[in-house]
């Protein structure tokens, strides 16, 4: 179904060099338009940026896994979110001393204990993903792509079922890594909103930048994302990473040069599973509560869309797409909220809109290679 022209509109109208100039111009124009739009719509841009990034960062961790799996095995893994839920439940169980009737209190959870259980949960996530890869995805190598997609949907449902089986469909409190910390710290000098006592707005465990609350958990999540992304960048320069890239591009040639396609496929899934687990543990912290299936119902679809925005096979693209999507969704919500419009479903509207806009101009995503 390949259309016969799929290069960027700019590239076709102009040469590639001019196209690049236009693209930079368009990006600048978009930024200016957003700033103007924000002031017209009474939306606090800073607050949108911060809150949007907060969601976007979790999207990004899920999206990285989806992109990695797609890049290496051409499979859309619908179970990517649920691996995270399982990991979150592993951490929950560990912290609760394997007694699921315990209600976790944030202030009773030791930071190091949580880190320990998280490391275990991440390993569980990686093993789980490898098992899915070996047990199902590799068995369906010759089936239609949609069959593999359905199989991963099946895995997601299986995991949800297993969680319901043990934990029941009830919300359970879930801790953040860093909930405490000094409160009311003010950075940025510009304090738009102050409390009655004259302090800068900032609840406990947060500090305020220009009147916007920022939690320490958010800073940690962002830091983790940066570390993960950097580690991935380094990984792709190691021999194993190069082999993985080679396998994804030319499986047959890679096999001829002694790379095991099976092993590479499992490696990619395992890494993605670890990301998914990390996302689950941090995602649980966003709402400080977890239920069976929460990663799938809250984060999976936005993460898939974000990965596609970024070009699906590009890791930086997945991160940029996630942040963009988080910010756009938050912007839409704030714009509707601030003006009292009765527009139903602003995040979905924004998601569809931004996806259309990006793909119409770049049919293979922001960072995708033009075919």
């Amino acid at each position, binding site marked *: *179904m390949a*259309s016969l022209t799929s290069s960027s509109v700019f590239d076709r109208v102009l040469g590639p060099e001019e196209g690049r100039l236009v693209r930079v111009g368009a990006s600048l124009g978009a930024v200016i338009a957003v700033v103007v739009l924000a002031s017209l719509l009474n939306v606090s841009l800073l607050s949108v940026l911060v809150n949007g990034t907060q969601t976007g960062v979790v999207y990004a961790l899920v999206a990285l896994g989806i992109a990695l799996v797609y890049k290496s095995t051409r499979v859309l893994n619908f179970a990517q979110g649920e691996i995270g839920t399982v990991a979150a439940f592993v951490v929950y169980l560990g912290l609760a001393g394997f007694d699921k009737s315990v209600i976790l209190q944030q202030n009773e959870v030791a930071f190091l204990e949580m880190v320990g259980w998280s490391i275990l949960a991440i390993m569980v996530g990686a093993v789980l993903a490898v098992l899915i890869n070996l047990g199902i995805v590799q068995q369906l190598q*010759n089936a*239609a792509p949609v069959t593999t*997609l359905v199989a991963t949907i099946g895995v997601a449902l*299986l995991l949800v*079922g297993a969680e319901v089986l043990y934990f029941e*469909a009830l919300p359970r409190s879930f801790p953040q890594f860093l909930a405490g910390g000094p409160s009311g710290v003010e950075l940025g000098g510009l304090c738009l909103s102050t409390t009655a006592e004259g302090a800068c707005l900032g609840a406990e465990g947060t500090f305020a930048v220009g009147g916007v609350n920022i939690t320490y958990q958010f800073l940690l999540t962002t830091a983790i994302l940066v570390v993960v992304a950097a580690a991935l960048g380094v990984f792709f320069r190691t021999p194993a990473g190069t082999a993985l890239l080679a396998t994804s591009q030319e499986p047959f040639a890679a096999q001829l040069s002694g790379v095991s396609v099976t092993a590479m496929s499992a490696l990619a899934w395992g890494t993605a599973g670890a990301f998914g687990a990390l996302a689950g543990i941090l995602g649980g912290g966003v709402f400080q509560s977890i239920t069976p299936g929460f990663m799938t119902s809250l984060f999976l679809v936005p993460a898939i869309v974000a990965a596609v925005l970024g070009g699906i096979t590009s890791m930086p693209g997945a991160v940029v797409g996630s942040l963009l999507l988080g910010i756009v969704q938050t912007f839409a919500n704030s714009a509707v909220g601030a003006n009292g419009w009765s527009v139903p479903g602003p995040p979905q*509207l924004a998601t569809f809109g931004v996806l259309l806009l990006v*793909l119409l101009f770049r049919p293979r995503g922001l960072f995708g290679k033009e075919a």
Partner: protein
Amino acid sequence: MATTTAPAPSELGTDDPRNPWTPSPAGRIARLAVFGLLMAAAIAAPLIVPDVQVNLVTRAFVFGIIALSMNILIGYTGTVSLGHQAFVGVGAFTAAYILTNVGLPWLAAVAVAMLVGALQALLIGVLALRVQGFFFAIVTLAYGLFTKEVVFNITALTGGGAGAQAPRPAFVEPAADYAGSITGDVRYAWLALAFLAAIWVLDWRFTSSRGGRAVQALRDDSRVAASWGINVRAFTLLAFGLSGAVAGIAGALFASTQVFVSPESFTLTVALTYVLMTTVGGVGSRPGVVLGGFVFAGLAPILTALHDTPGWGVAEEGGEGALDVCATAPPRVVAGVFGLVLLGVGIEAVRHLALGERRTHVQRVLGGLIFLGAAWLGAVVGLGGAFGALGGYCIFTSITPLIEPVIGVVLLLVTLIQFPGGIAEQLEAPLRWLSFGKFHEEKSTSVGGGSAAGSSSMRP
């Protein structure tokens, strides 16, 4: 019909491909008889089931139509649609709007729903010309969510969260003084069956004439198709338009089944159900996908009945009431079903080990049927449980049914790995027989069984 002076079939050798194999008169009668029985079963189904379940049969027929619509996209064009619930929903809300706000007759409402369905599919199809493959699948995913959350919540058009009324046509309602056993529900089920049959025939003709062939050629290689003079854009859009039109009709029928339509009927879960039923049925195979549609149509309602919980649409934001109902009545039926499933799988396993390659075709088909019935029933019930959980509804609290989601999905996965071509692959031999071919194909040149599995495995 032949206009040229080709040699008469009798002059050709028996192995000449110009002289295709046809069944003997007896074989012909046998095939027609089985075909007739199947038709009779479909017609009799609404009469046989208890009155309260007639709408479930209607729902199965409508899901069959939806599966055919999905099949045009997934099977013929190779485009995965993850937002097909929007296609169906647009038809449903259009029909409801025409019926209640414009007041046109029912058939006119169906026609408008068909046109609007085709139109919105064409708009999405225009995107498919530029955005392809995986990227396009995700566009449909976002389109589905956008339609459900935004478009279907525009109160002026759809009644918003409160939903819209979609009365049934006057001609299916029995006269006031009518005292027979054929209720309006049964007549409506037959109406749905008639639509299913008509669309089936149209779809069959489509695939065996120039339009369908061109579309399928595009799926395999658009460059080759273009080199043969096939207009890539026109035929891509044609497939989208047809799929949307069929989905529009299905939506109109769906709306009038419950006489009411609400945005909650078109969630992401529903879209995934459509993908599941098409894949499980066997992408590219008409009987396969329709059977898949039938099986999955029963998913939510059967579960609801088994568990004696409130209907899914109603139990949304379930609260205390739903929980209470949940906690009651350990469903023995489910335990029974699972006993059967395990029995079926056991029998099939023994059969496989004991007979292996020496099985006759009849044995193989019988074994396949047992496996099919057992595994898919288990899968469906299990999937229903898991979907319920994903929707946040409380369904399981007692011990027995807790195993459902797990076993069900395990069965689904095991079966998919065994038969990537789904139901169509499992039933390949009898289906071929029924369509006036040989029961057993000597030249097993087709790879992977199901037509879709075969085609995709050969794709580079």
